[in-house]
């Protein structure tokens, strides 16, 4: 081969590598929205469109979903009880052989793991850590949950704080491993799996005769309308992946139901406690949701989740 041509090709290759690196290193952007009125009706689609038009110059954009650990803490704080029957059985791990099903169920099992650990269910915690390990290994996420993690978990099984720290570390190891290896699509599917599991557990823990206007668990379910826009943005960023597109269809089905729920919030006023240095964001929210919409949401979540756990 002509040596000059070889050099030229090498130069072109370098330019292509650098261009790809620069493109992948840069985020998308959005710009500034209008000032608020005192009352704002929350609509995830409208917010998203505003956000998409915004921040054009911003270098890096992150869309952060509640992690499985946060989801479990939100459930517990809202008064949820422990019900192991609602969780995906650890006997099901052999069903998951595709990347999509392993990613979804890594999210699902990690949420179940977090939920079990928050309610001090020691054996279930160990079982769900093992199930999560199988899914992570299947996805090639190296060292996220290794033998050392399992040993530390068993040695500290009665120390909830250490257990939660171990769970947080395994979630971070998985997401950062996928990020480092440019597998953000898988990372997104894991998070959506965990998010759907949280919705499934929550909707099944709400009792039939509950007062919809005065129930914390129902409020946290409705709050997912706020998260929905972030879920869709995250999926959209990875929409060149067929599995992500498939999951996006499910999330859009949920969106159609969440769109029937109205959330109105007043202007937020930050008030800082000088002694503790903790700021409270004061605001009032009114919610409007019919029992029929709630039942529709519950059934849709159940259907999507049953397709995920196979």
């Amino acid at each position, binding site marked *: 081969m002509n040596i000059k041509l070889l050099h030229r090709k090498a130069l072109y290759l370098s330019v292509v590598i650098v261009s790809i690196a620069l493109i992948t290193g840069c985020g998308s952007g959005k710009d500034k929205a209008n000032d608020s009125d005192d009352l704002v009706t929350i609509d995830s689609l409208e917010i998203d469109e505003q956000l998409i038009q915004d921040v054009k110059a911003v270098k890096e954009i992150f869309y952060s979903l509640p992690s499985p650990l946060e989801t479990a803490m939100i459930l517990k*704080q809202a008064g949820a009880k422990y019900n192991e029957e609602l969780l995906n059985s650890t006997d099901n791990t052999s069903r998951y052989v595709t990347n999509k099903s392993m990613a979804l169920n890594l999210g699902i099992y990690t949420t179940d793991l977090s939920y079990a650990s928050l309610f001090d269910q020691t054996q279930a915690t160990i079982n769900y850590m093992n199930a999560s390990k199988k899914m992570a290994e299947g996805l090639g996420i190296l060292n996220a949950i290794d033998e050392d993690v399992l040993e530390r978990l068993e040695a500290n099984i009665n120390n909830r704080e250490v257990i939660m720290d171990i769970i947080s570390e*395994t979630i971070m190891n998985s997401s950062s491993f996928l990020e480092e290896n440019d597998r953000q699509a898988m990372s997104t599917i894991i998070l959506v799996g965990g998010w759907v599991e949280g919705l499934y557990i929550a909707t099944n823990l709400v009792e039939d005769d509950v007062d919809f206007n005065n129930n914390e668990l129902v*409020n946290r379910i409705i709050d997912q309308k706020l998260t929905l826009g972030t879920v869709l943005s995250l999926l959209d960023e990875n929409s060149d992946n067929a599995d992500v597109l498939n999951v996006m269809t499910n999330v859009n089905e949920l969106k159609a139901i969440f769109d029937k729920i109205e959330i109105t919030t007043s202007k937020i006023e930050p008030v800082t406690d000088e002694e503790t240095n903790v700021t409270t964001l004061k605001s009032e929210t009114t919610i409007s949701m019919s029992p029929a919409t709630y039942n529709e949401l519950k059934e849709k979540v159940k259907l999507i989740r049953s397709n995920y756990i196979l």
Partner: protein
Amino acid sequence: MKKIYQILIVLTVLALIPFHGKTQCKSFAKKVCKLELTPYIHDGNFNAAILTEGEDAELYKTFYSGQNYRIYICGSAALPDIEFQVLDVNRNVLYDNRKSNYARIWDFKLESSQQLIISLRVRNNEEEADELISGCVAIMFGIKEEAD
């Protein structure tokens, strides 16, 4: 010919920096940043990037009523101060760390759940320098159960 090879090497190294940087960022977030969240528990999410002075980033997240949160903006020691603001969906400023001497930590809770925007910018170095400084910046969230 030698010059072309030198250019090639420089371009290849430049191309590989982001990938090496990601690994460094994870290690930094895990070993250094996580500790600052105590007594809050890290939520497990990994939001980190290599930023150069003058560059900015934004993060969108829903925060829930009933939880106590800590935001920690963790930057490499070599970086200048990092400005960060917390905004509501209409970009009204709820917190601005420039009023708190560029504090990296903000603890808060909410009366009702809200989608918020964390907006940050690495300040430009005030001293004249030949090179722009880059480093890892991680946005970490800690959560704590409400005391009974």
